[in-house]
């Protein structure tokens, strides 16, 4: 009796009710429900309440994120050590190729620390986008089982990346020092840079989460988008050198302005200016980066606009995430 099969024919004999009286007698069910103060349970809460609920879930978001990062390496022998080893190996690859094999500096002093700073900072955003796009789709069973503001998911996935980025940042400090750059007071500026970048990443992760929730194909496209973004953000070749060498950009100078305003470049560049004071001092002022004041304005505007806009956009589809 535990798993009965479907009956061969519909049992209609036991029903004697005339079809005419199907619950339509008296008042409608909707009116009856309203009269007793019942509310629609799949409705989207108002924005203020939604924000309060989300704030109430902050411990869950943090716990979910740290559990996810913990679970990521449980199957490997070295376990959590990989959190440190992965960025070190990444840096090693770049050192091998660009420092030793190509031994190129492209006019940039401290090229390897410059490159590694760029790669580490950019990959924080890149990974937030990649995991944010999957955050709703891979947790459908959770969405269909429990109530919580769905924005918790993309936020938690970004927090995972943030935790990893913190480890990577510690590794980065070591690498930069290993290349002879001494810690300076300007290093403290990395804190507001990463904080603003985190806000931006939270926002963009909410945006791609909604896109990915309804159009799964987005996650197939994202690697191409982020790779293009990486090259356009001066992570490996500086934007200044792109602007001077490319005929196409020289003819269309607005492209260079766009590249320098793009958030990928803004956060990477600010981090470099914080960690590598020599780079700022020695770069040719002719091809020098956008002035730092402008970069800070971009950094704040991007963080606020993308976070607020992304949050609101994600929220607007709140009640539809379960349908997949």
């Amino acid at each position: 009796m535990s798993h009965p099969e479907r009956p061969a024919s519909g049992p209609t004999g036991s029903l004697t009710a005339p079809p005419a009286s199907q619950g339509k007698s008296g008042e409608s069910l909707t009116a009856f429900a309203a009269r007793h103060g019942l509310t629609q349970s799949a409705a989207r809460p108002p924005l203020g309440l939604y924000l309060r609920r989300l704030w109430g879930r902050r411990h869950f978001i943090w716990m979910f994120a740290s559990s996810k990062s913990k679970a990521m390496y449980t199957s490997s022998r070295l376990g959590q050590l990989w959190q440190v080893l992965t960025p070190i190996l990444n840096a090693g690859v770049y050192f091998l190729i660009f420092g030793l094999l190509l031994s190129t500096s492209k006019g940039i002093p401290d090229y390897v620390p410059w490159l590694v700073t760029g790669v580490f900072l950019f990959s924080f955003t890149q990974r937030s986008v990649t995991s944010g796009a999957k955050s709703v789709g891979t947790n459908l069973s959770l969405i269909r089982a429990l109530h919580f503001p769905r924005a918790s998911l993309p936020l938690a996935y970004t927090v995972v990346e943030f935790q990893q980025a913190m480890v990577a940042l510690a590794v980065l400090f070591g690498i930069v020092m290993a290349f002879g750059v001494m810690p300076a007071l300007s290093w403290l500026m990395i804190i507001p840079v990463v904080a603003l970048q985190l806000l931006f990443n939270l926002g963009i992760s909410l945006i791609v989460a909604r896109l990915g929730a309804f159009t799964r194909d987005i996650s197939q496209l994202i690697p191409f988008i982020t790779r293009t973004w990486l090259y356009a953000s001066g992570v490996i070749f500086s934007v200044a050198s792109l602007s001077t060498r490319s005929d196409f950009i020289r003819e269309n100078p607005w492209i260079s302005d766009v590249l320098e305003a793009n958030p990928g470049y803004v956060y990477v560049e600010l981090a470099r200016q914080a960690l590598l004071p020599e780079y700022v001092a020695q770069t040719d002022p002719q091809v020098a980066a956008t002035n730092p004041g402008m970069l800070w304005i971009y950094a704040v505007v991007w963080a606020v606009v993308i976070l607020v806009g992304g949050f609101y956009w994600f929220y607007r589809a709140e009640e539809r995430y379960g349908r997949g």
Partner: protein
Amino acid sequence: MGRGVDVAEKEQVNHVPPPVVIDTTRQPIVVVDDLHIKYKVYGTVREKGTGASALGRILRGRSRPQMTEIHAVRGVSFIAYKGDAIGVIGTNGSGKSTLLKAIAGLLPPASGGVYTDGQPSLLGVGAALMKDLTGERNIILGCLAMGLSPEETKEKYQEIVQFAGLRKGFIKYPMNTYSSGMGARLRFAIASARTHDVLLIDEALATGDAKFRRRSKRKIDQMRKNAGAVFLVAHQLDVVAETCNRVLWLDDGQLVMDGTPEDVIAAYTEAINK
């Protein structure tokens, strides 16, 4: 829905739904009004999945044929009153779990509506747990996922460990080392640590040994007293008969019968043994 979505075409039996009787002497807690639930399933490829056929589909303007729409609940209406313990029975795939998820507000209705007093919650914390992590960590994660505060989690922790009755030391092991019964016990223990307005239980009693089933039944009775109403999906008709005062019989997403456990279970048993 939009083009490019295939509606699952299967033979559908159409039932005449039982009339919904409004009992004005009792306080309603859940009203389900002509509810339809549809959801999409990915990856059910019905044509050959070659590049050429994909290209052909794109040219014909049918973007995503591998997406099938399932019409899981088709026009269900009923009223649940305070103090009701409602059993939901039906064959596999009759839409029982989907109905429960819709009452919980977790699956948005395609049309019709679910109106509730308070927040119905599904006894389904399992989805939040991570099997690679220890039982200890999962208890905390599960409690936070259900919306408990860290303080409440701390308070409930010992109670959950005791109720789950795991063998000594297992709480420090990853959950993927647990037997299926142990896992089910821990999940139920975590899920029942919270009080609920409307409690929806989906097959929670199917796992675990006899001792645990007795303990969990006591727990459910206790939760039923605190909750406004309890819904129970179960295939064990004896469990339904002894726990519920009312039974809904679903078949193919439609309500066939709504009545006392004796009447409905008798009719259901007769139908499936035909």
